[in-house]
């Protein structure tokens, strides 16, 4: 099947031009002397940001009222089997079976307990079960690529899944996303709400990917890269990766403020 390519001025832009823009924005960051911990929402090499980033400065506001709380999820929300993405169909999915685990903590290192973690990902061939994904790689009938779990008392989440493949996208000609798993995480305050992507160590596509490079600080973007951890593998069954998630700081509770004095 041939998918008609939408008329798009960016579609024929070469990777070399994107690389140049990434390099220029990176050099500007190096000269700025500032520390950026988050991606730039205004990041031209990722073309879809152009009309979708705010141009006015965000308004600084400490969380108040309902923002200092987070929704509660519990046993009635999540079936423990949803943490295993390899058993959701009649047979096992193709690909490298792996465990992905880590802790969700706040800036003080305190665990986020009993909170919802949602993930979604492409299959081993780099194809999503989504009608908008036109990548002509095979769909795996035994893999939907969606998982959920609740963190335990230590803030630990744990999924069993398969390693996703890289896939092409239409940002520019021959653009490829590094393999990644999308994560959606809640904290103890709604303002800690985070949606992000976890990557795999040593991916050769990192340097070419404007979404990853939109986090201009090298150390900050490396926080999205999981570590291979032989201790979380399952012998004869799966490899293992560890990736901890640190949410922005929550306010100390009144009790803890007292203890600080």
């Amino acid at each position: 099947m041939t998918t008609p390519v939408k008329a798009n001025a960016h579609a024929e832009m070469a990777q070399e031009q994107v690389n140049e823009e990434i390099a220029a924005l990176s050099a500007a960051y190096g000269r700025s002397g500032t520390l950026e911990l988050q991606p730039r929402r205004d990041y031209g090499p990722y073309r879809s940001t152009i009309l979708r980033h705010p141009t006015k400065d965000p308004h600084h506001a400490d969380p108040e009222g309902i923002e200092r709380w987070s929704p509660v999820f519990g046993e009635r929300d999540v079936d423990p089997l949803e943490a295993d993405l390899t058993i959701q169909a009649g047979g096992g999915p193709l690909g490298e079976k792996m465990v992905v685990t880590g802790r969700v903590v706040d800036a003080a290192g305190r665990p986020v307990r009993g909170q919802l973690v949602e993930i979604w990902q492409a299959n081993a061939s780099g194809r999503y079960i989504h009608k908008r994904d036109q990548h002509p790689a095979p769909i795996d009938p035994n893999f939907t690529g969606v998982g959920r779990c609740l963190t335990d008392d230590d803030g630990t989440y744990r999924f069993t899944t398969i390693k996703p493949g890289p896939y092409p996208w239409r940002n520019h000609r021959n653009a490829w996303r590094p393999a990644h798993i999308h994560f959606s995480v809640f904290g103890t305050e709604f303002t800690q709400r985070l949606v992000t992507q976890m990557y795999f160590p040593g991916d050769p596509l990192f340097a070419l990917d404007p979404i990853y490079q939109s986090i201009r600080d090298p150390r900050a973007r490396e926080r999205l890269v999981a570590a291979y951890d032989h201790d979380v593998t399952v012998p004869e069954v799966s490899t293992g990766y560890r990736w901890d998630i640190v949410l922005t700081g929550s306010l100390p509770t009144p009790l803890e403020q007292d203890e600080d004095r």
Partner: protein
Amino acid sequence: MSSLPPTPGQTVGPFFHYALPYDGDNELVPPGSPGSVRLSGLVLDGSGDPVPDALIEIWQPDPAGGVVRAAGSLHRDGHTFTGFGRAATDRAGRYTFSTLRPGSVAPGRAPYFAMAVFARGLLHRLMTRCYLPGPEVADDPFLASLETSRRATLTAREDELGYVFDVRLQGEDETVFLEGRRD
């Protein structure tokens, strides 16, 4: 207190629709049930065009201003109000919730829905507040700290079924987005 650097955000991308939305996600209460209101609006880009691949979440107190501690947002039982809802925008860029009016959590503060905005092309979520129109808005200390012209972007308008609140990601009448000092 030590401070660990945060894990950066990334865009929700174009393929979240089979993962994040769920049955009843945008119906905190059944539409048309006693006390229910509709909260809806458009998500618009810098050209004023609708954003058909955005995701909006709301988190709110109950009508008395109580913080809800009930689980069950992902499998609603039709009776328990959980205060949390999620709505993907449709092809016309519109999101819709059926919910209850939030009360004020603290005296002297105008009631609002806390709102998180995600979209393809948006590299890190945006946070904002959707205030209910009413007399409290004039006295709210946070709203008073904003320029008058920008304050209006945070106040919903009433319609026959509830409230309308558009989210403008960019442009002259861009919505005020919030950032904590530690973000």
